[in-house]
């Protein structure tokens, strides 16, 4: 059983809700923090690295230009569709009578898509590929006693979708014997989000009750529908603006997604989190709302884990 928490908008409460789900399900779950750009699951779950459980991540080869060999012919500049090759300061002097051009060219790593088109066209063999460690993948133990698989993508590195798949694979291998895998998805609707959603049995759509939250959730819900994933909604930061609460409910209703609960905007949740507590461990109404929302999600999970015969009509969803 794979449950993915996603929102479209950043800062909507994905990580906190995923952590609360882990707290509620432990010890029968495994966590996977797929927000590898901004991995906060380890902080939320009080995770400590398990001895020997870190591995290097390679994103695939990138390309460089050897300045000693480059003749500044600019064939690579012509071939690059991503404007990722820039002139090196200084002049290359090809001989008497020639027009002075740049000294050479180099690849802007931040813009390079690593397609290799430049490699094919360089007449001098000045372009070479290299492998570089792009991040690390960890398995940590959490304060709830369950493992969390998480990763750190090095700043500026490409292909985070590939790292997300690596996190997912490692976590799926750990989630044996009916344990539920809780996936914390990155914001947005792009490649790492698709990698986080794919194969999910249930998506918990966190809708921040704000204009941006509703707009971004709308795009996420469209993506989820196209991927034919089953989902349940949770409103977060409600009570700030009644119109936005209404809009958040309407956006889920428009996609035919049931509302599992509504979490209040309450600084006490933030304080608890800063103090190392999950949201469902908070006293009072704020915590009560969180527990009610989680209970709905747990009911959905239970429903989905019933033997196939008992829910055969539910297999092909939506």
């Amino acid at each position: 059983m794979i449950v993915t928490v996603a929102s479209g908008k950043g800062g909507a409460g994905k990580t906190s809700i995923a952590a609360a789900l882990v707290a509620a399900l432990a010890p029968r779950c495994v966590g996977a923090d797929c927000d590898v750009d901004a991995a906060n699951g380890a902080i939320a779950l009080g995770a400590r690295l398990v001895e020997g459980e870190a591995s290097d991540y390679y994103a695939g080869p990138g390309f460089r230009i050897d300045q000693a060999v480059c003749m500044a012919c600019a064939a690579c500049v012509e071939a690059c569709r991503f404007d990722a090759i820039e002139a090196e300061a200084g002049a290359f002097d090809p001989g008497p009578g020639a027009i002075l051009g740049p000294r050479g060219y180099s690849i802007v790593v931040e813009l390079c898509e690593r397609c290799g088109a430049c490699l094919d066209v360089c007449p001098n063999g000045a372009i070479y590929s290299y492998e570089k460690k792009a991040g690390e993948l960890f398995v940590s133990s959490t304060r709830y006693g369950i493992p969390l698989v998480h990763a750190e993508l090095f700043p500026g590195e490409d292909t985070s979708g590939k790292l997300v798949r690596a996190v997912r694979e490692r976590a799926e291998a750990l989630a044996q014997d009916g344990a539920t895998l809780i996936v914390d998805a990155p914001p947005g609707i792009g490649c790492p989000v698709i990698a986080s959603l794919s194969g999910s049995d249930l998506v918990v759509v966190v809708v921040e009750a704000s204009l941006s939250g509703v707009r971004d959730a709308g795009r996420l819900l469209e993506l989820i529908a196209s991927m034919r994933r089953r989902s349940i909604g949770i409103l977060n930061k409600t009570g700030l603006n009644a119109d936005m609460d209404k809009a958040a409910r309407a956006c889920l209703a428009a996609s035919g997604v049931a509302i599992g609960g509504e979490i209040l905007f309450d600084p006490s949740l933030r304080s608890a989190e800063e103090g190392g507590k999950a949201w469902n461990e908070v006293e009072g109404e704020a915590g009560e709302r969180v527990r009610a929302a989680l209970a709905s999600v747990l009911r959905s999970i239970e429903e989905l884990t019933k033997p196939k015969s008992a829910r055969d009509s539910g297999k092909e969803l939506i």
Partner: protein
Amino acid sequence: MNALRPAVIAVASGKGGTGKTTMAVHLALASARTRATLLVDLDVEAPDVLGYFPMVEPLEAPSSVSVAVPRLVGAFCTGCGLCANSCRFGAIIAIGGVVTIDEKVCKGCGRCVAVCPAGALVEGRVEVGAMVESRVGALSLLEGRMAVGDIRSTAVIDAAKRRAAELGGAAHIRDCPPGISCPATHAMEGADFVILVAEPTRFSAHDLFGAMRYVRDRGLAAGILINKYGFGSVDIEELADREGLPVVGRVAFERDRAGAGAAGRLWESNGDFMRQMEDLVTTLIDMGNSSRGGFR
């Protein structure tokens, strides 16, 4: 003096939801009071700038953003498989001499077309997103928007950056995507100054750390704008100081403001806040003018 070109300020953060869009919108509104300003929404997976301007009509129909993808001319294909070998994105498979192209994962690099010895690949365009332009008073708006289900956010970001360069003006404010991987770095690339918006929470501090490392390694001029000041447990000032980045502003947490922000209501009537935004833009532009021979 350099050729006329706008000062480009990128508003970014590691963590989402720290207030990038809110800050970018108000920086741009404040800047537009005294100079020709363009606000560019480069958070193309979740573009929300236009939500702050519900009454604004687009100047014209959205323009399509597309990439060139290969299409197979079956009659010419010899099934050699060189195209599949050249593709780094897994967009082409050649099994038993049969070539299949997956347009959805193609990045449009053109390498396969160049390597095909039989001329069996020709390029067609596939839409990956759109751009919308509009104007509010003296402020111009440009939004990049990736199509739902697509993965080529960087193609949309790059297209919006190119369009922004054509539009010119005195100042560009970019609203960047969260994170520190390719969409965020494409959005920050080429900026004269990066404002990293952070909040004083443990999550934000962790993500800010990655973003600070990025701007430092890339050699980008940057500073920290602390939003929701007083709303967490982390001393962001100390963190910024340790990494050698200046704190360029502080915006206090107020529940009323959180409510207004939720509804996408502007804080333009708050004179102190707007002056703070205007002063920040002016300071950054002046700093650029003195430190590197000018943006203009």
